[in-house]
């Protein structure tokens, strides 16, 4: 019996083939090492830090805890899908404006989480924002500027009045 598995994944709306992967590979590993999508970051591989956050079937999850070969047929969205043309999403812009990025390692995971939060709860209170981001660790900023970025993004979203902003 072969030690390797091949399967297809739907990532950011595209069908991608993973050929000859090892069975135990996480979605995070496959995205970064086999599909060339290095936006999701690997910091712990234990579900603790959130730097690998992606959307699977519209749910925010840690891609390091998803067995890649089990994600066949599911709708996977990564940070790369948020600014396909290279133009920053409103959340990304808010992070820049608030100075919420230092080393930047936590940033892609946070941006994915903040998009998820503001789409579900555009008027989240401060405490709700904190709870929603409790699975995303940042070792640099101390979180003050990240919370400020969320406030800016939320205000921008409300002012814009559009429900379907990327």
């Amino acid at each position, binding site marked *: 019996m072969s030690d390797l*598995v091949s399967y297809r994944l739907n990532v950011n709306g595209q069908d991608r083939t993973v050929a000859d992967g090892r*069975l135990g590979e*996480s979605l995070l590993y496959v995205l970064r090492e086999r599909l060339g999508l290095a936006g999701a970051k690997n910091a712990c591989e*234990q579900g603790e830090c959130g730097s690998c956050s992606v959307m699977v079937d519209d749910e*925010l999850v840690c891609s390091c805890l998803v067995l890649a*070969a*089990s994600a066949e047929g599911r709708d996977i969205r990564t940070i790369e899908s948020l600014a396909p043309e290279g133009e920053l999403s409103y959340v990304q812009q808010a992070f820049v404006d608030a100075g919420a990025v230092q080393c930047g390692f936590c940033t892609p995971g946070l941006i994915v*989480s903040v998009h998820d939060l503001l789409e579900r709860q555009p008027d989240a209170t401060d405490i709700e924002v904190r709870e929603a981001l409790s699975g995303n660790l940042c070792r640099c900023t101390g979180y003050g500027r990240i919370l400020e970025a969320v406030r800016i993004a939320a205000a921008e979203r409300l002012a814009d009045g559009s429900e379907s902003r990327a």
Partner: protein
Amino acid sequence: MTVLSPRTLAEACSAAASNPNADLLAGGTDLMVEVNSGHRRPTDVISLGAIAELREWSIGEDRITIGAGVTFAKIASGELATAAPALAMAARTVGSPQIRNAATLGGNLGTGSPAGDSLPVLAALNASVVLTSVHGQREIPLSEFCVGPKRTDRQPGELITAVRIDRLNGPQEFCKLGTRQAMVISVVSVAVVADTSSTSVRVGLGAVGPVPLRAPEAEAFAAEAINWSGQTSVDTETCRRFAELVRDAARPIDDHRSTAEYRRHATGVLAARALRRIFP
């Protein structure tokens, strides 16, 4: 090596029967941690995520049935949270939003860690566990399902398909102690639920024994001490005695997360806090 993704329970049972050593995969929040750290090398995996039957729940008059594949995010809000408030409170303390979106009730039972946060609540709500295989279905009390730390009565080829718990009339509370607010494994957890219909109080304890524990003496004491027909508020002396009796029911050990002595102390503190919250 294979990854099977059966779409029905019947298919999953056949797959588990023909390969009893396959790893069953639900949310992956326990299993993948082991895989990533190299402690487990899966050769065959049966992924349960596509089975709609496992993600259903129903709220009956006296009992609530929750499918093994229901996530903690689902349990934490909506009608399940109204029907089983203490379970919802426990669900809300599991990991982070990312973890709760993936982690299932069945996975918490499958792992069977003494620190699993659903377990003390399930114990207090007289839970039974439904196990299904090609040979049929059996339903056993939680106390028979949990046989030791991370050891359960699940047999090879069996799937946990659902959990049944009491639907009670009355306030419920879950308190958990860890080193921080989010993303923390319990050092101690305590569930206290009241049933005004049968004028009873039940206590479930987590992380202070090899399996989830009840506190029968404390339960009997509280049921007596509470004035069920009038102002259901508890005085300081009742809380103190209740805390003492709950603490005596704990059977904690020393480990890297805490000492047994501190766990015993904290069990009493959380018990008193929970009782005061439900009978303010």
